């Protein structure tokens, strides 16, 4: 099961797509889209990553075990970021008891 030889043209087209997306993300930075600036920038970066993974890194023609390893890697990264951010962003949701913020050490009878 040897790897197929991908035509040079495919690599060049992918490269042109990546350059186009870089120009697009740079251009969009000069438009005021409010919070969507970040969303668009990350969506474009994600698309570029997929292009590199599938074509330059050859996952399009890889075996299933290879893809499983890659997906597992990114899944763990997603867990790392989602759970950490989930913790930080929800810490102030419920009020803490007044006694927690008392500066004086608790007195024991």
């Amino acid at each position, binding site marked *: 099961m040897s790897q197929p030889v991908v035509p040079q043209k495919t690599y*060049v087209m*992918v490269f042109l797509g990546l350059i186009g997306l870089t120009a697009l993300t740079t251009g969009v930075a000069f438009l005021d889209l409010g919070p969507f*600036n970040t969303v668009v920038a990350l969506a474009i970066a994600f698309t570029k990553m997929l292009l590199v993974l599938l074509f330059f890194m050859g996952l399009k023609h890889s075996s299933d075990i290879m893809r499983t390893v890659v997906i597992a*890697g990114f899944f*763990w990264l997603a867990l790392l970021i989602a759970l950490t951010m989930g913790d930080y962003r929800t810490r102030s949701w419920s009020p803490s008891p007044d006694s927690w913020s008392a500066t004086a050490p608790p007195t024991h009878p």
Partner: protein
Amino acid sequence: MTEAEARAHHPGLAHQFRDLDQQQETDTLGIWLFLVTEIMFFGGLFAAYAIYRWLYFAAFEGGSHILDIRLGAANTMVLLASSLTMALSVRSAQTGNRRSTVTFLVGTMILGTIFLVIKGVEYNQKFEEHVVPTLDWAPQGETLAKLAPGGLGHAEMYFVFYFAMTGLHAIHMIIGMGLLLWLVVRARKGTFTGGYFAPVEVVGLYWHFVDIVWIFLFPLLYLIGGRY
């Protein structure tokens, strides 16, 4: 000797493998496992970045506006071009074309050098603007006006992330350049012929991974909050 027999007796084939294809599959899986550890290595920085950017958004926006977006975009394109030449050198090694393998590998090294030179110019600018945390932190004038609204201490935190993330990325580039040099020497000797090209493939995967890290660093560091 038929082509199949030549492949079975290739000097690049280690004795524990049945054939070159099985060896290549094993090598590729191995480098992917390494790259997963790299994802988590950079991932820790990305997660920390996400928290601080959320906590001190104004400071991160101010810091981002100190960076030169043209140099950042130019460097992104240089690195993408180096990924193209890398992919083409892997393809050349796969088809056993020694000459174009070497040409594309050298091209990748040249583009990698251009990237590092531009990065060096940017680092130098940061020293001139006195926005290097700890070593030279004394922003003045226009720079100070951009950083002050978010709080100077928090802006310094932005530059800690800027130098830590781009610095770690640059170290990976330098290691990659060393690996490319090693490949050039081996490719010139004609090592990568007759279906044996796993080392080129493996270094290629590493190089593309480093490219992906930059694909995210560019919008996250240079494009915060927009330039409108």
